[in-house]
């Protein structure tokens, strides 16, 4: 069986779907690279609603997880596990097929400012990573 291949893995503030466009139903809004607390907010941020967009290909059915980790140290590449979402079940089908998904991650916690990674994980293997920055 071929391994799952990730084409795109993005984090955004909002995603919408248009059922009248079945070939390309998803639209992404405000793809995230950097986030700042809004006026009056302070760390820890108890939850920011985000979306992850994935285009990948594979066959058969697979289970995925999205882990959120904070990169605690650039030098040693130490990470702190923040939270996890899943299981995200994707039935690809009997032959290799490309599948597109947008998943809503409710209330992602960000305890302090810093660099965070969203890791798309299949079992124990991380198959895609997206990095964002949380500013002071």
């Amino acid at each position, binding site marked *: 069986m071929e391994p799952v291949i990730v*084409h795109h893995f993005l984090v955004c503030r909002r*995603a919408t*779907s248009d*059922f009248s466009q*079945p*070939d390309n*139903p*998803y639209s992404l809004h405000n793809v995230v690279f950097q986030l700042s607390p809004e006026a009056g907010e302070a760390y*820890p941020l*108890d*939850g920011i609603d985000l979306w992850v967009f994935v285009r990948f*290909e594979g066959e058969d059915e697979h289970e995925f997880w*999205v882990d959120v980790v904070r990169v605690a140290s650039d030098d040693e590449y130490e990470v*702190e*596990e*923040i*939270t*996890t*979402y*899943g299981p*995200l079940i994707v039935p*690809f*089908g009997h*032959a*290799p*097929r*490309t*599948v*597109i*998904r*947008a*998943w*809503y*991650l*409710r*209330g*992602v*916690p960000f*305890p302090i400012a810093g660099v965070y990674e969203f890791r798309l994980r299949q079992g124990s293997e991380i198959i895609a990573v997206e990095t964002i920055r949380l500013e002071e």
Partner: protein
Amino acid sequence: MPAEPEKQQPKIPRRRLPAKPKENDSPDMTEYEPIFPVTPEERKGQSPSHIWGPIRLAEQRAARAKLAQPQPPTEPPPEPPPAT
């Protein structure tokens, strides 16, 4: 007139073509809740590594694995043999 230097082809790594999209694949925009932490109160007064760290993650995964295991069927105790 100097000869025009040969145009060099850009070195683009060859990529395999993506597979065809899955047919009749309706949009999936499922909503997911974080598995932990749960509430701000839960974090209060405790180290973030305990609340959000690998220990908690391992506990959550162990709990999920336990739930996923099939429960052994409960059989009624064997009836005593009839008295003669």
